[in-house]
């Protein structure tokens, strides 16, 4: 049998992207409504921070723009994973409805097939807000921007995207073992988003920071590079901690792979 030249994954991703976009545009009013709804709800947590600082000016030594810097990377990471990894987010449903079986019938890597199976453009409201907050925080924070610090900030963004994406993949992997999606996972994703709105030491809990460093490496993507960024830590290693989230990603993909193997051998 002749082998055709394989369409490269990035091109196929582009095709899927435009398909999802067109499908979303079929329901314009629904799209706009959920877009604005999304924007409004995420604005609420922004105002919560803003009001707090309007009253107290600093919290635990951090200024508003510093906290917003934290908030912005978390927001960006969360919304990017939410838009582009929707397939993993809704994975339990896909397994139950059997549409995962269809993905197994495609001559593509499974991770890729699940990745492109859903994209949620209505969630771009949060993403847009992320960009606005980022723009504000970057220009208003008392940070002397150097190339190294700019790099650290970009790494923070990358780390947060990887972190929240890893959580969604983990959540998808876990549902092979439980069939139902586990709400417990939301503690880390949504909980991580809320906690991560502030520098993690604000909560004054050492176990919390240790937990979010070694088990669920949120602090690596947010807290440590943040210390470097604001000049509270000088060691360059602090800026590189977001890369640790890549290891977390590999672990989560590993769990997912084990889950797939179990699914194929039990069929449930």
């Amino acid at each position, binding site marked *: *049998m002749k082998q*055709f*030249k*394989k*369409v490269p994954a990035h*091109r*196929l991703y582009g*095709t*899927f992207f435009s*398909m999802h976009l*067109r*499908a979303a545009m*079929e*329901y314009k009013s629904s799209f706009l409504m959920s877009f604005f709804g999304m924007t409004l709800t995420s604005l609420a947590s922004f105002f919560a921070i803003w009001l707090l600082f309007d009253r107290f000016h600093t919290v635990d030594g951090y200024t508003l723009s510093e906290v917003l810097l934290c908030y912005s990377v978390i927001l960006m990471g969360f919304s990017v994973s939410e838009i582009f990894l929707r397939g993993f987010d809704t994975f339990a449903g896909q397994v139950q409805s*059997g*549409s995962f*079986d*269809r993905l*197994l*019938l*495609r*001559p*593509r*890597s499974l991770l890729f097939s699940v990745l492109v199976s859903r994209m949620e453009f209505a969630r771009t409201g949060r993403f847009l807000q992320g960009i606005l907050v980022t723009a504000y925080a970057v220009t208003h924070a008392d940070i002397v921007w150097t190339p190294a610090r700019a790099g650290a900030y970009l790494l923070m963004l990358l780390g947060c995207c990887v972190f929240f994406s890893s959580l969604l993949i983990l959540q998808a992997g876990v549902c092979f073992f439980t069939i139902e999606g586990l709400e417990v996972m939301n503690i880390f994703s949504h909980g991580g988003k809320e906690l991560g709105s502030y520098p993690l030491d604000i909560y004054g809990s050492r176990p919390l920071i240790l937990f979010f460093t070694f088990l669920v490496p949120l602090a690596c993507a947010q807290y440590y590079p943040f210390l470097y960024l604001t000049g509270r830590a000088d060691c360059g290693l602090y800026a590189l901690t977001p890369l640790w989230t890549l290891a977390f990603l590999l672990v989560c993909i590993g769990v997912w792979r084990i889950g797939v*193997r179990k699914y*194929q*051998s*039990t*069929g*449930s």
Partner: protein
Amino acid sequence: MIYVKELCKTFRVARRDGGMKNTLKSFFHREYTEIHALDHLNFTIGEGEMVGYIGPNGAGKSSTVKVLSGILVPDSGICTVGGRVPWKERTAHVAQIGVVFGQRSQLWWDVPVIDTFTLLRDIYSVPETIYRRNLDELTEMLGLSQLLRTPTRQLSLGQRMRCEIAASLIHDPKILFLDEPTIGLDAVSKIAVRDFIKARNRERGTTVILTTHDMQDIEALTERILLIGRGRILRDGSLDALKREYMTERHMTVLCAGLDADTLSLPAGMTLSESHPDRAVFSLDTTVLPVSDAIAAVSAQTDIYDLSVENPSLDTLITHLYKEYEVG
């Protein structure tokens, strides 16, 4: 093409009795029952064959199709499709097969059908020239020209199924699995789908494996039947041989001047099953009594105005088979 030997698959199913107490109990300790979905399954299917895979619900039909298509990994046994072990070389394998699940669409709900097709072209890396050729051919044979620009959600069930079948053939698969392809379709669509499958098998030599409960599908499409029950192949043979063996009963309806049920004398292998003043229905066992003898016996005793002889339906035959093998 397809080679299956001693294939086994066992599922563990959690069992509990109803009621709150048992629900709580099962939360801590679960009892499992083992279900042998595939129990030493053996068969081979040659290239270009068209096979009907039948059996009652829960017999192991969909488990077999899942193993053959690489979705499910069996516990033991050998299974090769086109020389490959499906679940070991999944991506290479699935590029060679097409699967139509009657109940599970692969068309995108909100975009025109043609968009799904171009997407599938890229997923399967079909070169543009081959894609064009296949698309033109499928469009013509399945009458899709009016449907391609319509979003899937606006298609009728029959139209959708035609598009669904086309979608699974865009990449020229060597083997086509059809799972209940005519379920819920009206008569016209059913016939269109059947004619197409037949033509595809004849002209392209596509191997077709059809699972269905629709006996008309089987009758119209397949020469060979695999009957599965409790995870085993119970019967593997031609439909004609089955008919000769099992469809030995005929119903003969006679319109006549009048029959007296009490004085009627009938030869062996013939019984009166219904009697009306001017009409009678007999059932005949053709292994004992040829139809011509039965007609002669009746016409000797009364004047026949009209007469018809009917085969029992294929459904009856299958029910009979299930009963004989104690499945279903």
